[in-house]
């Protein structure tokens, strides 16, 4: 099937370590279970998550001519993600990251972007224009944000929907000049984009409105982890509670959510319906250990949703 | 690009050919009333208006509101000639999803306002002219209204407002072809004395042959003087002008040409 969902994003596989709590600056703490894990960085995570949920995906990105880059192509192939637009950089190594996992199942991330930083507008343009029948573009800020926003602009101009996951976020004054169909930050990213200090007093509905105005997106969805999500489109606010599950490992849940929004829209769901569906997908992934290995397949998600709904009717 | 009269006439002929093509393909439309404004639109789009087909949504472009919206085929054919729309769209006139809807649809870049309901266009042109003034934008707003359309009260509301607010960046063509749906204008609702009415409303009024490029250009030059008054040119025209059997023929007000008539008309226009 021709790719219907394009991901313009990063590949920066993470190494993992378990800690009781995250370290403070200047501290050395003991970690355990230092390991390579199958976690690609947001771009490749979202591509694989989307593929498992049933989209036909093409990944557009840049890796080094090294072990990590080669391993990546095998990951993509095993989930049938098209990678003809995965550019090989002879000069720069593949990006990478360190993921710190706490006992509570929360995580924090340090990334270094490597070859990802050298993905060019020309490369992105050539790739996107190669798939005129694709409908969704998914991108994040682990590649240079100008490239991500360029991709979003181009996608919208070509009549596609662009989903921008502004992670990691900084305050960007240029956002208003770009075209974004759906902006999906988490709470920290939402506050950061607006240049605000994160606080629990702020009414999230107002944050949604401010963000949608500041960024000129058609819709905004702020993900709130176990508190679900809150969204705003032209018709107003909607709030989604997260399905109640036992959280084993939350790493990658945000990526599953973003990917599932894209796949939901491809299925013809409205953005609100897609958000609900995405909440189930993310919930299922946190009940499982690992990042990419926890990403659900479509049939698994269907079963999970059925069970959840039946559970609610008891 | 500067077009001389010979070029303008050639363009006008192409526009008429395309009006016939699109209405005959759709088997629907108003070829007669579209024909009467061809020279006006040609002069506007190819001689006067500041429009760049490569940058059709530019903020500083001049605007054209076709208030007599049923003449849409004339506008569409002109925009195809100008390169704003592809020639293929002529086959999609009055079809689902086409930018060439039955009456102008302002959602489409290149078409400046939604019209078709007679009487609503001039107000929109007035709003654009007002907006331009308030923004100190140096652009001109043009509108084409029909004579039958002057039966509508909203036209006169707009006329009062434009004068009171000194909208001298607004230039209107009144397509005085003397004919409306149910009969001759003078028999349905007489507008006479027409010039005096517009003068009484405070407009600078001109009258000329609406099919003569020199006279149209002359009017447009006079109209570009900013003297605190909106301008209206009463263009004396004929429905169906340009094809012998269509000229002055009421039959083509709201009916497209038959296959035979189409062939005859195109033959005449091409020679």
């Amino acid at each position, binding site marked *: 099937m021709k790719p219907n969902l394009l991901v313009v994003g990063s590949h920066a596989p993470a190494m993992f370590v378990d800690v009781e709590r995250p370290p403070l600056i200047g501290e050395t703490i003991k970690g355990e279970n230092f390991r390579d894990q199958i976690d690609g960085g947001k771009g490749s995570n979202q591509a694989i998550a989307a593929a498992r949920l049933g989209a036909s995906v093409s990944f557009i990105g840049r890796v080094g001519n090294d072990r990590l880059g080669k391993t990546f192509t095998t990951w993509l192939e095993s989930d049938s993600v098209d990678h003809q637009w995965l550019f090989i950089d002879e000069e720069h190594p593949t990006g990478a990251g360190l993921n710190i996992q706490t006992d509570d199942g929360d995580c924090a991330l340090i990334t270094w972007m490597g070859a990802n930083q050298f993905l060019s507008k020309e490369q992105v343009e050539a790739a996107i224009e190669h798939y005129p029948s694709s409908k969704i573009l998914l991108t994040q800020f682990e590649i240079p944000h100008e490239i991500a926003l360029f991709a979003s602009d181009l996608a919208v101009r070509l009549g596609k929907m662009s989903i921008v996951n502004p992670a990691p976020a900084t305050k960007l004054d240029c956002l208003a000049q770009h075209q974004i169909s759906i902006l999906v930050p988490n709470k920290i990213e939402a506050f950061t984009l607006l240049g605000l200090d994160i606080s629990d007093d702020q*009414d999230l*509905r*107002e944050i949604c*409105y401010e963000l*949608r*105005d500041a960024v000129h997106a058609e819709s905004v969805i702020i993900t709130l982890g176990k508190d679900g999500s809150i969204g705003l489109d*032209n*018709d*107003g*606010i*909607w709030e989604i509670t997260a399905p109640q599950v036992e959280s084993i490992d939350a790493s990658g849940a945000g990526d599953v959510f973003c990917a599932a929004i894209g796949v939901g829209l491809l299925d013809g769901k409205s953005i609100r319906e897609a958000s609900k569906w995405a909440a189930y997908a993310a919930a299922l992934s946190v009940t499982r250990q690992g990042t990419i290995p926890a990403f659900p397949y479509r049939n698994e998600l269907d079963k999970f949703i059925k069970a959840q709904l039946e559970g609610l009717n008891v | 690009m500067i077009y001389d009269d010979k070029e303008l006439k050639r363009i006008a002929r192409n526009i008429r050919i395309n009006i016939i093509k699109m209405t005959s393909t759709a088997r629907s439309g108003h070829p007669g009333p579209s024909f009467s404004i061809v020279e006006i639109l040609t002069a506007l789009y190819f001689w006067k208006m500041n429009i760049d087909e490569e940058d059709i949504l530019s*903020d500083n472009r001049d*605007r054209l509101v076709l208030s007599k919206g049923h003449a849409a085929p004339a506008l569409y054919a002109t925009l195809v000639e100008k390169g704003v729309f592809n020639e293929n769209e002529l086959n999609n006139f009055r079809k689902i999803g086409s930018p060439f809807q039955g009456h102008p*649809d*302002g*959602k489409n870049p290149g078409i*400046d*306002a*939604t019209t*078709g*309901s007679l*009487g*609503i*266009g*001039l*107000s*929109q*042109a*007035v*709003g*654009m*002219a*007002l*907006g*331009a003034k*308030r*923004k100190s*934008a140096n652009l001109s707003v043009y509108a084409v209204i029909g004579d039958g359309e002057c039966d509508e*009260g*909203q036209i006169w*509301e*707009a006329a*009062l*407002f434009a004068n*009171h*607010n000194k909208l001298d960046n607004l230039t209107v063509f009144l397509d005085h072809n003397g004919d409306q749906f149910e009969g001759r204008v003078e028999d349905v609702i007489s507008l006479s004395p027409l010039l005096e009415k517009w003068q009484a409303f405070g407009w600078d009024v001109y009258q000329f042959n609406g099919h003569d490029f020199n006279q149209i250009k002359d009017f447009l030059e006079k109209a570009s003087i900013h003297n605190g008054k909106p301008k209206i040119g009463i263009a004396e025209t004929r429905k169906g002008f340009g094809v012998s059997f269509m000229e002055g023929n009421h039959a083509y007000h709201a009916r497209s040409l038959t296959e035979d008539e189409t062939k005859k008309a195109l033959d005449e226009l091409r020679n």
Partner: protein
Amino acid sequence: MSKSNTLSAILGERYSQRKALGDALVMLGEENPNLFVLSPDVGSSTNAIKFQTNYQDRYVCTGIAEMNTVGIAAGLAYMDFIPVVVGYAIFITGKAWEPFRNSVAYPHLNVKLVCTHAGINVGPDGATHQAIEDLALMHSIPGVHIFVPGDAQQVLASLRRALSVDGPVYIRLEREPIPQLLTAKPSQYLDDQYEIFQKGEIAILAIGGMVEPAVKAAVTLKQECGQDIRVICVTTLKPLNTEKLIQSLEGVQGIVTAEDHNIFGGFGSFIAETLAKFKPLPMEMVGLQDVFGCSDSATNLKYHYGLTSRHIIEAVQSLQFRIKG
């Protein structure tokens, strides 16, 4: 708690939505440099004229010409202004309905209509000036958002939300001052509905100035009959937040709607249309029973045409009787 104590916890002082409108426009004019206010000769009554004092360049009095006003608003929208037409409901939505529908709504332009003088609470001016069909007129046009703020403090929030919508919006305001809804304080942006009382098997859904008699009816029924009656102030009529409404109606057996509008094609009608599909329930509709108003004080008219808390109580009891069979 005595009845008056409970009421004073819910219903605050009376404030004029029209006054709040003038202040809101001035505030928003500062925040939004593209805001442009159009007034068809009623600026001193609607308080739109306050905007002119502060932002002369972005204000125009268009005279007694509502159709032209709406057309000019469309033209201004094409020039990247955000036009807000402020007039009387019957003349803007009525006389200018077709130019609005064809120049603004069909091309989905970013024009807002903010209308005062909706309902019979217009009072002495009489029937010609009392808009009792405006919701029907606006609701039936595709793509037009409709907000009905429940009090004066919600007016600013409704305008802010209207400005965040890309497309045509209709906001309906009363002429008479109405009590502040102390437990329905909006954030900066208007919510879709405000739940005032959450418990009970009968729910009263009310809009605008009818929230006050709805609350009074509920409090009376609680005090005098020990009954819990839900009251929801619905502020976003289109798009109706069906999901939220249905959630709020969990456990409800019947609904009374209350509006200062004809019951045909009005708020009750929209609720019935929506719920018929998802949660059909017996209903009673308090409102103008397909009759025109006339001249008198707003208070007298409300008694005469059945828009008081007593009428709502009767509707609740009638519904309860029907449900119990």
